[in-house]
């Protein structure tokens, strides 16, 4: 018990480093705002108000945090097995494609069946898009960073193709407007609204997924094997563990959670349509990338990723408020987002350097990534 409290304190301490890193990125953002002729104090005040200042703001933050948490938890599973998953964007899109495809193919089902099957379809879509780079890495030694980036590009093109063609709202063709989007998807598959008119069940699903991932990683044999493979592929292999299958599974789980995030985005959206603006970011809001930072923020622990996603979600919601308040182009948010990624990742080694300090054994199951190494899979 005392050891887990100690680990908790250590984790709190370690949350401070990425938080400072994010603040440093925002300081650069202030300089950019001044350069753009905007008042940074006013901007950042609007940011905090927009993220946490009211009930509505908190709801928006929770909704923004949902895909970050789901992707982040998936990233955590992959990282623990020493695999980097840069493919969250594509896996989210594939999850949305499978989920929307299922809802279009089976439009009339009772709600008790429709919603769960739509979410399962999302999980499946993401799982497929995670299993491909997983298998390529495990059995063909293909670098997963590259394969996932390429699969992101492929997923976007498939999405654009489907939404302009087979999936398109028939009304768009009749009116001749041809906006690439589906019709309003079946109401029986809507994520139920829990509070007010915006807060849907997505955040609850994400938190449950985080708890499930925690149980998987630290309370099951499979999770133990994944982490063992992450700590040392050679040792795990020597112990007779199925290294290749573990790598495949880690990326499959990781993709499945991102796919679920994609399904939640579609069926929790206000329009209840799957819409594309032609880019990945237009659909995902870069959650596939930001989920990585969320996971690092949370010390690569599924449960710590919950508060981490809320903070990061607030940052993104607040950035929108900032942009509206001081009237700067929204591209500023993408640039700021990049800076936050850079600063958080750069501070990550500082954090692990701190961890390597005294005794490695006291750091049982709570925080700290395995030292990522690109080992060839024999």
């Amino acid at each position: 018990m005392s050891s887990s409290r100690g680990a908790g304190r250590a984790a709190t301490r370690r949350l401070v480093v990425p938080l400072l890193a994010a603040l440093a990125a925002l300081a650069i953002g202030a300089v950019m705002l001044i350069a753009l002729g905007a008042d940074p104090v006013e901007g950042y005040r609007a940011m905090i108000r927009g993220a946490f200042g009211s009930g509505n703001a908190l709801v928006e933050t929770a909704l923004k945090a949902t895909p970050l948490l789901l992707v982040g938890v998936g990233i955590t599973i992959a990282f623990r097995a020493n695999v980097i998953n840069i493919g969250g964007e594509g896996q989210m899109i594939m999850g949305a494609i499978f989920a929307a495809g299922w809802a279009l193919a089976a439009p009339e089902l009772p709600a008790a069946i429709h919603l769960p099957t739509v979410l399962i379809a999302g999980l499946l879509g993401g799982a497929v898009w995670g299993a491909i780079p997983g298998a390529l890495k495990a059995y063909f030694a293909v670098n997963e960073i590259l394969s996932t980036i390429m699969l992101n590009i492929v997923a976007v093109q498939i999405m654009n193709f489907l939404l302009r063609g087979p999936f398109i709202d028939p009304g768009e063709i009749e009116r001749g407007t041809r906006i690439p989007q589906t019709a309003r998807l079946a109401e029986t598959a809507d994520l139920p609204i829990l509070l007010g008119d915006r807060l849907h069940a997505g955040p609850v699903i994400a938190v449950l997924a985080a708890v499930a991932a925690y149980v998987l990683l630290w309370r099951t044999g499979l999770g133990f094997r994944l982490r063992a493979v992450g700590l040392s592929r050679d040792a795990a292999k020597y112990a007779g563990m199925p290294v290749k299958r573990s790598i495949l599974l880690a990326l499959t789980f990781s993709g499945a959670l991102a796919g679920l995030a994609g399904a939640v985005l579609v069926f929790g959206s206000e329009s209840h349509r799957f819409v594309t603006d032609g880019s990945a970011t237009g659909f995902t809001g870069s959650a596939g990338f930001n989920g990585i930072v969320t996971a690092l923020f949370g010390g690569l622990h599924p449960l710590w990723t919950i508060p981490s996603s809320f903070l990061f979600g607030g940052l993104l919601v607040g950035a929108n408020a900032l942009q509206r308040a001081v009237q700067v182009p929204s591209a500023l948010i993408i640039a700021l987002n990049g800076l936050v990624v850079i600063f958080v990742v750069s501070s990550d080694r500082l954090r692990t350097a701190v961890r390597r300090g005294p005794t490695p054994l006291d750091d049982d199951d709570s925080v700290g990534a395995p030292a990522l190494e690109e080992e060839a899979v024999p």
Partner: protein
Amino acid sequence: MSEFFTSAVLIATVASGVRLAMPLLLASLGETFGQRSGVLNLGVEGIMLLGAFFGYYAVLETGSILLGLLVGIAVGIVMGLATALISVTFRAEQGISGIGVYLFGLGMSDLLFQRLVGTPQPIPRFDTVAIPVLSNIPVVGELFFDQSLIVYAAFLMVPVGTIVINRTTFGLNIRAVGENPEAADSLGVHVGRTRYATVTLGGLLAGLAGAGLAIQLGIFQQNLTAGQGFIAIALVYFGAWRPIGVMLGSLLYGLVAATVLQLKTLGVIPLIGSDLASMAPAVITILALVVVARRFRQPAALTKPYVREG
């Protein structure tokens, strides 16, 4: 379809493929240096976008193409140094920090474009310079020796890069640091300094590639590079970390892109299928990675930050 197979169309397509290969070639040659020294720079796309915007803006304001290229180079150097600081000094996880650089470049170039330019305005493009004698060779002359100077420069960089990597002390240091930094360090090679040099060089070439792309198209718009920076990284794997291989990969990509463009223009591919045709480069890359991963080994220290022990 038969229209495509007339010699004039074929020659035009291949010549345009050689042209389209230029930015990919410059960026992937730069990335080759970084990776041979053990650093994966995943931010090439972001650096290209910044180089493209600043290069475009310089040409728009001054009308000087040379100045545009120099500005692209300068931006690339700054971003290369920043990348080295992040990857070498701060030892950030390279697979992720590069995504940050990409997002920064994507947002920043768009932000500056909207603030400083607003509506797209065309700028002067490269002139083609026919090389005497060689350009008179039938077919080959039209394909390779009636291009712009930057295309020649990019292809000239291939033998230069090969010689630098394989035949100079600097190249030996790069390879040593990328394969076994501990041993290199013990022999007095400065690991950090070598990696700073290669990553900065990679940034320089990425910035130049971006500026070259903008001036080649005579335009800038949001996300101008549209994934070319990521393709350039994949080409380094494709080319098995050798300038010649990287060049062949760039040419193949240029040709595929030019063919898809040409088929679209001729209306052979209906509009609806063009999304699927645009998938070709990414799918080819994945297949190529499978083949390459079986045959070639990446630099042993790739993506591993170096920490001197004890």
